[in-house]
Each structure stands twice: as structure tokens, then as C-alpha cells.
């Protein structure tokens, strides 16, 4: 530490060793014998304090210390490790310090020096010392005693007391303050752990999708596990976006580092990603925008990320990577291989970096695994071995009925303690069968996904492009009618059923509303459209609701 940095050189500044010699010189202190002071010490550390919240507990201990030592001020500063500063957290007789959010860098000023040296420190005459905090001199504080607050040998803060009159602090004073500080240290550490746990939980709850979309024929599964359960949140994240037309976009990423800063960068990246996707940008463009944003944020945090979008109707993936580990593709036969991707630079390193979108077929029976390094990396092991293990795990898990992410995770990590965060997202394209049954919310927003699902279902029977278009659009028209019937009803739903038998597709769309007189031209056109596109259209209007039945024979089935 720099010997020129003020306080330490002040003529009145004495360290603990020096004070030993001047024991008994204390002045301005009400007479107190040893027993009395130990009684007060007990009062500082009694167990009733355990029931208070951290803030209340810190305040209470400071108040008791003030009484026990007959000092005018008592304050606690905690170390912010990320920024290397001490921040005022609780104070008595010096409340401005907390209100104004006073901060002092490590190794500077009175508190900074104590934290840096991890030793008690006394200033007998503040006037002659170079103090960083103007509040201390404004208050007219004359003498100060401060001690480090530590947990397991680590300094986590500083506690100090001060008097308006000149005072020489005795050994017992230092011991007393140190014992109070130790007691606080435990409480603070416990509180911080539960705070971290709470933050981790909030991040998990709010920043990760709480429910994966339910899409017929597509099984999504995910795992997110922070390492060391709640010690420090990491920057791993994944997300699933359902865009109109049945297209799904998956994102996975890993912000370098841990702690709240990494988590906040992750949160901002995730929100921005949603915004760019909703705006309709192409994937590589989204990645470039995200990169420019991270560079502009200037937090010096880089991140790797992968974006994959899946068009279920076309059976195609588009993928773009910013330095992320390669996505694993399990082919319909069960053989897994890593996507050969153009790996762009990680995000947040160089502005205006270009990324490349590549396309891959993704047929029914295929699966995709996106993951972060925590899933495959083992200390002291080449990464190729981790990748090989993942490939084997995915091939084996593909034979189970369990969701793929669960199977892969169980095979790779099981119950072993985690060395790093793990985020894992799996997408499986499953066969739809000869019947498709859907119950949908009566909201026009479902139409695009409905057409995509019907199209995907038809494609599995080898329906031609025209047939697929005609049937999907007719189902969508009938659904549009059902939605219109439910107009005004809250939480109304309607049912769609499609059957494939002997090269013939039969569809029924059933609602619980009344069929309204066709409102020309829209609805009239809808009905005309269904009649033109399908072989047969029947409408059953009942007391309970309306059912539209349609059929169409496919020219070439499978």
C-alpha cells in the first residue's frame, strides 16, 4: 500500500501496536470497570439480535456499541469487491454517511486503510489526519477507532466509532469493537448468502422462460443449474421465442464472469435479443445488433451466444454463432453430430462484427441440443473429450422416452457437484401421428401457429405444396369463424381435430358460440374460400355451438 496516502502518516495516527503503550490514558469516558463492560459486550452480542432483519440488527449493534463505549458515532462500511470500494451501510450518530451513500476506495482514507491492512487503526486527533470523508470533519469528530470486519480471513468491511471530545482508546475498547464486528460479520455473511440465493432465484424465475411453449410435435426441454447452489450467480442464459407463423427461435449464451454484474449484462442482452427478434431482423443481423449493444454498454464483459431458428413447416434450421460451443444435432437415425458452423467472434469485443447464418435440414425425428460449457468441461481435461461425452450422452438419451435435456443432463452430470453453471436446451421434432387434436384460445393470434402446425402435420403424409396450402388455409378460415363467434366471451376456446385416413384428410373445427349471419364481404369470402379449397365443407349450427367439417383427398399420400 502507498505510504503517502494521507491518514497513515498523520502525526496523531496510531496503530494498534502503538496504542498498547498508551493504555490507561483514555479520557472523556465515563468510569466503567471490567465486569460492567463485559456485561455490555454480552448485550451487544445477545441472541435476541438474531430475530432482527440485517439492517435492524446492524443498527442495533451500532447503537449498543455507542452506549457501551460511550462514543458519539458508530458506523459500518461494507466492501464492494467488484468495484474495490467501501460503501457506508449502517451508522448511528453519523446517519448522513449512509444517506449520502458515502464510498471510499480501498487503501484510501481511514476506513480504506483499515480494510487494506486488515488491522485496527486509531486516530486520536482527526484535525491532523488526512481524512477522505468530509462528513467526519463536518460533524466535529475528534478521535476515531476502526476495526476490520472479516469472514474466514477475508475483509468484508470496516466498523468504526468516533468521539467529539478527544479520546485515547484503550485495548479493551479495541477488543470490544472487534468482537462486535466479528458478530456482525457472521450475520452479514449469512444475510449475503441468502441475498445471493434470492437473486439467483429471481434471475431464474424472471430471466429464464418460466414455461416452455407447448407445440404439437415439438418437445422442448431445458435445464438451468447455477454452480455451488446460490454462491454467485453466473451469466448463463437460454431463451425460447415463438414468432408468428410457427417459427421458433432458440437462444443460448454465456456472459464471461460471475456475480450480479454478469447477470445484469445477461439480463440486458436477453431483453435486447427479444426486441431485435420481434422487430423481424434476420438472425445474423440480430447477432450483429446484440454485439454492437454489448460493445456500446462498455462493461468490458464479453459473451458467447448461439441463435437457432426452426421453421417446423419447412423442416429447416437457421443457425448463427458468436463464439459459442457448437450445437449438437441428433439425426432421425439417432446419430449425433456437431453443426459445422461459422464461428463468429464472441459478443462485446469488436464493434460492427459480421455474423453468418447457415441452414440445416431438421426433419421429423431430429433433435438439437444447445448448451453452455458447464455441461461438458471438466478441470484438466481437453474440451474434445467433453464434446465426445456429450455426443455419446445425446445418442443414448435419444432412445429414452424422457425429454432429451433431462436424459443428457443425467448422463453427463448426474448428482455430481457442479464446477460451473449449466444451461441446456433441447428441441425434439416428434412425429405427429394420424390425428391432430388441438384446443386453442379464441384469439386471432393463434391462427399463424395453427396453420404452421397443420402444415407440418400434413407434410408428414407427403401432402403436396398446394394441398398443404389449401388445407392449412381452410382450417385457419374455419378457426377465424370460431374465434369470431367467441367474440366477447372471456377465455373462450375452440377445438380443431384433423384426421388422416386412406389418403383423405378430415377436419373439424368446433366452437361453443352461435354462428352469426355471414358478415359480407369478409366471412362470406371465408366460406367461399373454404369451399374453393376443400372437396367438401359442411356447417352444423347447434344450440351448443357451431362445427365446421371439411375434407380433402390427397393426390399422393404415403
Amino acid at each position, binding site marked *: 500500500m502507498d505510504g503517502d496516502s494521507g491518514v497513515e502518516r498523520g502525526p496523531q495516527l496510531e496503530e494498534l501496536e502503538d496504542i498498547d503503550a498508551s493504555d490507561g490514558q483514555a479520557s472523556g469516558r465515563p468510569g466503567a470497570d471490567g465486569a460492567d463492560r463485559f456485561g455490555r459486550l454480552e448485550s451487544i452480542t445477545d441472541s435476541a439480535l438474531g430475530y432482527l432483519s440485517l439492517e435492524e440488527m446492524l443498527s442495533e449493534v451500532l447503537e449498543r456499541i455507542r452506549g457501551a463505549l460511550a462514543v458519539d458515532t458508530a458506523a459500518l462500511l461494507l466492501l464492494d469487491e467488484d468495484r474495490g470500494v467501501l460503501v457506508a451501510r449502517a451508522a448511528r450518530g453519523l446517519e448522513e454517511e449512509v444517506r449520502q451513500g458515502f464510498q471510499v476506495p480501498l487503501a484510501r482514507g481511514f476506513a480504506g486503510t483499515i480494510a487494506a491492512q486488515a488491522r485496527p487503526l486509531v486516530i486520536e486527533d482527526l484535525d491532523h489526519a488526512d481524512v477522505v470523508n468530509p462528513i467526519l470533519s463536518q460533524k466535529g469528530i475528534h478521535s476515531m477507532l476502526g476495526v476490520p470486519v472479516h469472514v474466514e480471513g477475508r475483509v468484508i468491511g470496516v466498523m468504526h466509532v468516533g468521539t467529539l471530545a478527544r479520546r485515547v482508546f484503550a485495548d479493551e475498547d479495541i477488543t470490544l469493537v472487534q468482537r462486535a464486528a466479528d458478530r456482525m460479520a457472521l450475520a452479514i455473511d449469512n444475510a449475503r448468502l441468502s441475498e445471493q440465493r434470492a437473486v439467483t432465484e429471481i434471475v431464474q424465475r424472471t430471466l429464464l422462460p418460466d414455461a416452455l411453449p407447448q407445440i404439437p410435435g415439438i418437445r422442448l426441454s431445458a435445464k438451468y443449474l447455477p454452480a455451488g447452489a446460490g454462491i454467485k450467480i453466473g451469466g448463463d442464459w437460454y431463451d425460447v421465442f415463438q414468432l*408468428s407463423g410457427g417459427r421458433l427461435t432458440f437462444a443460448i449464451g454465456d456472459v464471461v464472469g460471475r456475480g450480479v454484474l454478469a447477470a445484469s449484462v445477461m439480463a440486458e442482452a436477453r431483453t435486447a435479443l427479444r426486441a431485435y427478434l420481434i422487430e423481424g431482423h434476420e438472425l445474423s443481423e440480430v447477432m450483429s445488433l446484440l454485439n454492437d449493444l454489448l460493445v456500446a454498454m462498455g462493461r468490458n464483459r464479453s459473451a458467447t451466444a448461439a441463435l437457432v431458428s426452426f421453421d417446423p413447416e419447412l423442416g429447416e434450421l437457421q443457425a448463427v454463432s458468436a463464439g459459442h460451443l457448437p450445437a449438437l444435432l441428433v439425426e432421425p437415425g439417432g446419430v449425433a453430430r456437431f453443426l459445422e458452423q461459422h464461428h463468429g467472434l464472441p459478443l462485446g469485443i469488436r464493434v460492427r462484427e459480421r455474423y453468418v447464418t447457415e441452414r440445416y435440414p431438421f426433419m421429423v425425428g431430429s433433435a438439437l441440443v444447445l448448451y453452455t460449457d458447464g455441461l461438458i468441461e471438466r478441470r484438466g481435461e481437453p474440451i474434445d473429450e467433453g464434446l465426445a461425452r456429450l455426443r455419446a450422452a445425446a445418442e443414448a438419451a435419444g432412445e429414452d422416452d424422457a425429454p432429451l435435456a433431462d436424459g443428457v443432463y443425467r448422463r453427463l452430470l448426474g448428482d455430481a457437484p457442479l464446477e460451473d453453471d449449466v444451461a441446456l436446451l433441447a428441441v425434439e421434432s416428434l412425429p405427429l401421428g394420424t390425428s391432430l387434436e388441438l384446443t386453442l384460445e379464441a384469439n*386471432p393470434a393463434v*391462427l*399463424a401457429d395453427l396453420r404452421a402446425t397443420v402444415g407440418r402435420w400434413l407434410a408428414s403424409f407427403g401432402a403436396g405444396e398446394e394441398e398443404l*396450402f389449401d388445407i392449412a388455409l381452410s382450417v*385457419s378460415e374455419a378457426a377465424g369463424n370460431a374465434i369470431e363467434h367467441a367474440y366477447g366471451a372471456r377465455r373462450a376456446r375452440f377445438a380443431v381435430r384433423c384426421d388422416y385416413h386412406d389418403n383423405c384428410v378430415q377436419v373439424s373445427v368446433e366452437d361453443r358460440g352461435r354462428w352469426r349471419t355471414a358478415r359480407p*364481404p*369478409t366471412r362470406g369470402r371465408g366460406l*367461399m*374460400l373454404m369451399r374453393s379449397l376443400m372437396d367438401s365443407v359442411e356447417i352444423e349450427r347447434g344450440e351448443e355451438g357451431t362445427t365446421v367439417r371439411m375434407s380433402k383427398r390427397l393426390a399422393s399420400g404415403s
Partner: protein
Amino acid sequence: MSALALKRFDGLAVARPCGDIDAANAAAIDEELASCLTPDATGLIVDLSDTRYLDSAGIDMLLRLAERLRQRRTELRIVVAPDSQLRRLFEIVGMLDHVRVHATVSDAMADIPRAAPDVSDGEASAPDIRG
């Protein structure tokens, strides 16, 4: 959130909706298309290259748009690929009787008379809009 990509060439606006047009978004796209038209715009080209499905609400919206533009004497052209399902749909619903449809944006642009010389005699100079 923007549902369409817009480009301008002189007095022409070329709008490409990104995705399907159906009962969920037809009204919003109608509004966006209307806002593409500056007062001095001579024409609007709606490029449906990125649109896979267009339902009856979408068809209705385009027909109403065609009628509004006809009244203010602004040209409307629609672009759909000749071998696309949308082109077939347009034939089925008789869209081609009401709107001029082209295979590419440049074909559509070439079909819009530039710097209309004289519109003083109103209806008489309105182009034949039969496809």
C-alpha cells in the same frame, strides 16, 4: 414493432410485410400501409414475397386498400411470385379482376406511369386497372 419493411423510390413506396397476413394483423398492416403513403406519393407497391398465407381478412384488407387508393388516384401494385400459392389463391378469389399483380417489384415499378403528365381531366386519365 414494425410488421413491414419499407423502401421509397421517388414518389413510390415499396412495402414488404414480413410474414402472414390474417385476421390477427390485417388491421395493423392496413394502418402501416396507409402510413407509407406520403401526400405526394404516386404509387404503392405491396410486395408479398415474404408472405406465405393470406386469409380472407387479408384479402379483404387488400381489396379495400385498392378501392381507397383508386379514389385518391394513387397506383397500387401487388407483387407475388408467379408460381406461388398466393398467385393461385388470387386467381381463385378473383383478385386479379381488381388489382394489378406482378411477379417482381421491378415489373411493378415499370407498370406505374412516372411523372403523370396531366391529371386535370380526372377520371378520364385514370389507367385501366384490369390485370
